């Protein structure tokens, strides 16, 4: 029974494909999987948008959407219909082809990333040898779409937003990559399926998740920060800081193209949350050994949704960074820490897991963190923002 619930989607797929002749089965199963992915994540997107608007509303002492349907839960449907029926305005001087292609490139690149994410036991579309690299390759392609959108609009605000976004995404991609390299070093594999399997063991009922090791914790924290910046979420939402540059690189988009950008941004969030979950939070494995009877896909999507809730919480809490703070934080604080984290991961690998190793590694990282944060504060480079006129 437990097995069946865990593998229900896999069994369903096999049953569905079984009706076809053998030569077509492989192709059909791929097509079905792709269709399911393209159906599931936009649904989650609608859910997340509602959650965000409601949650932010509560954090800011207001109701949030509450008009459409009971408690406003049909708001995403209304938004969807609105964006579909709106006029699609293209600026007169815009580069029509590039302007049209930009949202498409973004959405395609973002959805491609899901091809390698293991969303449950045996629930990955393709298990490649280098699936981690594939995910990053697809993530890199989104930067280009941002540039295309910003440049083709022929609008100063769009271009500024695109430049900000690209500079930020490139800087934080380095951190994202290097913090995941620690995981690769320990697992010895670039395959996401193997990375999850390496974490799916239990000692005293506790899982072997990488986040519970010192280097994993540091990597996880850096990964979360970098993923926030990579998806242009608050407090790193300078590229679309509405009080400064309207909406950044998609200022000149309206109607369905705007909706595509919106979708791409949120689905990108799911992608990176799922990726981080796979790397550090054990993917689809259960948090306690007594809970392994719960189907694996519930754990995966639960963790991803938790991650999204965290993003929403951050957005309701933190003010936006300044450009120089953003860059200084990336290059002078986070990058050295990721490099140190790599060394600590190597130390962990060669000293062998144990209590002493744990304490030594933790001490190294903690001391480095405290020292760097202090020097940063002293120089006034990374510290809290000071208001010259507002006080």
């Amino acid at each position, binding site marked *: 029974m437990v097995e069946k619930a865990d593998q229900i989607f896999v069994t369903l797929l096999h049953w569905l494909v079984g009706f076809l002749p053998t030569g077509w089965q492989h192709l059909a199963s791929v097509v079905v999987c792709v269709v399911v992915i393209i159906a599931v994540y936009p649904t989650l997107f609608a859910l997340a948008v509602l959650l965000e608007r409601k949650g932010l509303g509560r954090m800011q002492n207001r109701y949030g959407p509450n008009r459409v349907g009971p408690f406003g839960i049909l708001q995403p449907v209304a938004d969807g219909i609105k964006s579909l029926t709106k006029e699609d305005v293209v600026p007169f001087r815009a580069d029509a082809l590039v302007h049209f292609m930009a949202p498409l490139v973004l959405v395609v690149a973002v959805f491609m990333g899901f091809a390698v994410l293991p969303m449950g036991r045996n629930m990955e579309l393709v298990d490649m040898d280098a699936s981690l690299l594939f995910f990053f390759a697809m993530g*890199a392609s989104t930067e280009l779409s941002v540039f295309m959108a910003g440049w083709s609009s022929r609008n100063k605000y769009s271009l500024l937003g695109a430049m900000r976004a690209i500079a930020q995404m490139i800087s934080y991609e380095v951190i994202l990559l290097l913090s995941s390299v620690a995981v690769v070093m320990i697992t010895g594999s670039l395959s996401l399926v193997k990375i999850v399997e390496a974490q799916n063991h239990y000692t005293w009922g506790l899982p072997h998740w990488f986040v519970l090791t010192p280097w994993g914790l540091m990597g996880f924290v850096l990964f979360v920060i970098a993923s926030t910046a990579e998806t242009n979420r608050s407090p790193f939402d300078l590229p679309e800081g509405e009080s400064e540059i309207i909406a950044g690189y998609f200022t000149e988009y309206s109607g369905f193209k705007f909706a595509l950008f919106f979708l791409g941004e949120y689905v990108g969030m799911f992608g990176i949350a799922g990726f981080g979950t796979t790397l550090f939070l054990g993917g689809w494995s259960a948090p306690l050994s007594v809970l392994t009877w719960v189907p694996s896909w519930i754990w995966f999507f639960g963790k991803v949704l938790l991650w999204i809730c965290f993003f929403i919480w951050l957005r309701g809490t933190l003010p936006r960074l300044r450009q120089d703070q953003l860059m200084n934080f990336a290059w002078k604080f986070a990058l050295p820490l990721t490099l140190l984290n790599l060394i600590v991961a190597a130390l962990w690998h060669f000293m062998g897991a144990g209590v002493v190793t744990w304490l030594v590694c933790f001490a190294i990282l903690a001391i480095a963190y405290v020292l760097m944060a202090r020097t940063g504060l002293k120089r006034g480079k990374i510290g809290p923002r000071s208001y010259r006129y507002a006080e």
Partner: protein
Amino acid sequence: MSIVFWIFAVITLGGALAAMLLRSLVHSALAVTLSFAGLALMFLELGAQFAGFTQFLVYIGAVAILVVFAILLTRSSEETGSGVFSPTWLRGLVIAAAVFAVLGWSILNSAAALPGTTAEPVASVQQIGQALMGPYVLPLEIVAVLLTSALIGAVIVAMHEKEGAE
């Protein structure tokens, strides 16, 4: 020759041609990105998965973005009054055609000596890692030094000389 090869060849060559012929520099940069993507796909088709993804990551994620930044920082995206080709374009074209003629002639002449279809080799990430840490460890270290010096060099070269400082 499979149909996949022809599709990728058209993408690659079309992108490269467009990059070299288009007037707008940003269009050229986007076209060359298409060409890079076509090449990455071709690497994948050749069974070199790791190289294909690296190509994607490095060329589309880094080189294309660098080019675009350089175009915007040098205001080259604005239309210039003069033509985009240099006055000696005919000579350049003749040289390129001659190079292609020689290369093509030698390839076609040695076609019989070239190996035919073989079984697809595998290059797993494990093998690549072992090769990098074993026989290729010296080149790896040298590339690391090269990349570090290139990073520092690029920063120094492109850095603004602060006026009035010191």
